[in-house]
């Protein structure tokens, strides 16, 4: 286990625990506790639903958060491990969401000409609208699946390769990715594009022949999302233990040295950026049927910044942190907007500031430090 340097001045929590004599208690826990706890909790949710502790709205809500957390895992790989702060992850998420949304719309109610109602409704043609050519293939499940994976991958691969080849780094990369997502949002908001304009796509009813409005379908979608999240987290964790993962860390810590050692950072950076985009796209595709709508506003600058906030809060460079951060911030946000509709920005803002000041490694990073500190104490004793 890596030794973590401790700066007692920084960690009020550590001092409090030491002061209360709880240091020994910590030894009962494992540094992997957050990961195991989160996985266990996710798998236990359907049980809580079955015994009536949770209602369908809450299961559905958690299912959506699982889908969202996939984006956070991708960003953790790109930012936490590789050191590139991308501010367009929510865009890949939305692209995957649109691919799925187009499929769902094609399965849903249509007007007399076979055009999904959500786009015929917003068109400004007085005589109605014919189904645009690019909508046709989305009637097929296989094409949709390919599109969910390929569209974000192609956009990320192309953009990433161009950007990394030009050696766009640091804040420039952040700003340029932000410009990209805002440009795409503006484009998707255009009614001319026949993607539903700012209203986006809605009126979803069926997926793979099942009515997604039923309770069983919602539970099934929860299972798929939760398992996809756990699977993606395990995959990402495995990836970081491989040679590829170590190269990513090398890119983060010293790209120049890596280049001198004969590696091509461009390839690795593009690869991890594309992988993160695919994860985000899958997340979007799982999110949309559970939410019932996909709109261009998901590609605004703010949702992508929120992804960064989740990862930072959970602890960057720890895959668990991304998941915990995404689930936790979304839960807090949901609870506060319901129970403190007027004051939630104060609380959420204060949480962000305090995490940065008092918990710079995020929740999971802090936890690991605490455990390391407790174990070191034990070793000394």
């Amino acid at each position: 286990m890596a030794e973590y340097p401790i700066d007692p001045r920084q960690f009020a929590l550590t001092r409090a625990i030491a002061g209360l004599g709880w240091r020994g208690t910590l030894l009962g826990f494992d540094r992997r506790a957050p990961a195991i706890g989160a996985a266990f909790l996710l798998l236990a949710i359907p049980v809580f639903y079955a015994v009536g502790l949770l209602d369908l709205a809450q299961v559905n809500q958690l299912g959506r958060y699982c889908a969202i957390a996939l984006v956070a895992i991708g960003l953790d790989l790109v930012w936490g491990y590789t050191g590139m702060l991308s501010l367009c992850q929510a865009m890949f998420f939305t692209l995957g969401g649109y691919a799925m949304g187009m499929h769902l719309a094609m399965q849903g109610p249509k007007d007399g000409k076979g055009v999904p109602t959500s786009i015929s409704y917003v068109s400004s043609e007085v005589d109605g609208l014919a189904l645009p050519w690019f909508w046709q293939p989305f009637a097929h499940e296989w094409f949709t699946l390919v599109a969910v994976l390929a569209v974000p991958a192609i956009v990320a691969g192309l953009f990433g390769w161009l950007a990394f080849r030009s050696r766009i780094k640091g804040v420039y990369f952040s700003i340029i990715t932000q410009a990209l997502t805002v440009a795409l949002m503006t484009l998707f908001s255009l009614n001319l594009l026949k993607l539903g304009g700012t209203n986006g796509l809605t009126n979803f009813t069926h997926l793979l022949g099942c009515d997604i409005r039923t309770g069983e379908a919602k539970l099934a979608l929860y299972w798929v999302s939760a398992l996809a999240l756990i699977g993606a987290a395990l995959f990402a964790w495995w990836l970081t233990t491989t040679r590829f993962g170590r190269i990513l860390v090398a890119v983060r810590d010293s790209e120049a040295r890596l280049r001198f050692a004969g590696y091509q950072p461009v390839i690795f950076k593009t690869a991890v950026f594309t992988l993160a985009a695919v994860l985000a796209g899958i997340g979007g595709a799982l999110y949309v049927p559970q939410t019932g709508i996909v709109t261009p506003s998901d590609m605004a600058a703010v949702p992508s910044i929120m992804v960064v906030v989740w990862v930072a809060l959970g602890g960057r460079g720890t895959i668990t942190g991304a998941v915990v951060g995404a689930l936790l911030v979304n839960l807090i946000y949901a609870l506060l907007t319901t129970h403190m509709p007027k004051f939630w920005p104060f609380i959420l803002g204060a949480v962000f500031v305090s995490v940065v000041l008092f918990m710079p490694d995020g929740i999971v990073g802090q936890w690991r430090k605490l455990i390391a500190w407790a174990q070191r104490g034990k070793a000394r004793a």
Partner: protein
Amino acid sequence: MSLKSTLLGVVTTVAALVGAPLSAEDTVKLGVLHSLTGTMAISEISCKDATVMAIDEINAKGGVLGKKLEAVVVDPASNWPLFAEKAKELILTHKVKATFGCWTSVSRKSVLPVFEENNALLYYPVQYEGEEQSLNVFYTAASPNQQLVPAAEYMLEQGYKKFVLLGTDYVFPRTANKVLKAFLKAKGIPDSAIIEEYTPFGHKDYQTIVAKIKTLAQGGGACVLSTINGDSNVPFYKEFANQGLTSGECPIMAFSVSEDELRAMEVPPLVGHLAAWNYFMSIDTSENKAFISAFQSKYGKDRVTADPIEAAYYGVYVWKAAVEKAGSFDVDKVRAATYGIEFDAPGGKKKMDEKNQHTYKPVYIGEIKKDGQFKIVWQSKGLVKPDSYSAYLWPNGGFPAPTGGPKK
């Protein structure tokens, strides 16, 4: 031993999720779903205030069917997926009997499947583009034939022959202009005399567009029919005045500028421009004065009332009247009782349509005055019947059947 931590986590999370307070037997919950933060807060907070005021008033007079009402106010934060999430939460977790909310078209579209899936009721207080009829929504504001068409007709009668259809690029302006274009063409206005322009949300720079309008307005006979939304109105009207255009040469007929929006604008240069609504604060009746003074004493002297505020306010009373008529809180019974129900609103007597979920309303056209109020310059004779689907877009009838409704 990681089990211990896991259990601890489980317990806290569940406690937080189930933490919604359990309601007492003698209260009935109503959801209020308006954005209190984010870009739409500027418009929606007033609607939330009006809804809450109506609920408080009803409680002060003894509630409905012997039960007190409890408003569950949540903040969907101008975030469209969050609207759907909050709607689910209100219906399934809080078990509200009806929900009052939404402003933008996209937020309504976002929650619509939720209300239809669960057969719940939404009261929607904002004029909108029509082309929709869900049995799970009561539309207490105007449909296009109660706002757009009378306004265009009024401008035609004033002798205007050149029309600039200017809007923000989203569904309300697009559909509104579709209706307006069909109407103007039917009245013999050639395509060459109609300009259609759209700007993105939050657009701030109207230099180019105002210059274009100015060219068109040379020689007179031009007017603007504006469906510009939200805060883009401020820079648009400022640029319009500063480039030397006045309401005398080229009036702007606005469909989204009410007394509440005028508070955020510099009014003197706007005097004489027009707006079409179904309610104005300046309606001179004692009921309206009582409504205004109640609203102002509750929320502050500087607050104003406006069309969506009135609609948000009487929506609660429509629900109450229907519940009392049905003698039940059951959604299907309340819906059946709502059809054709007559009620008193601050702006005068109104009536729900017998079939199509919308409201019979009077139409007013007002001219902006120096004090930010409207002088009513035209009003319809009596109430205008609402269309769910515009007859200008469905000339042969045959529009879609209503969606949603009782669970099969």
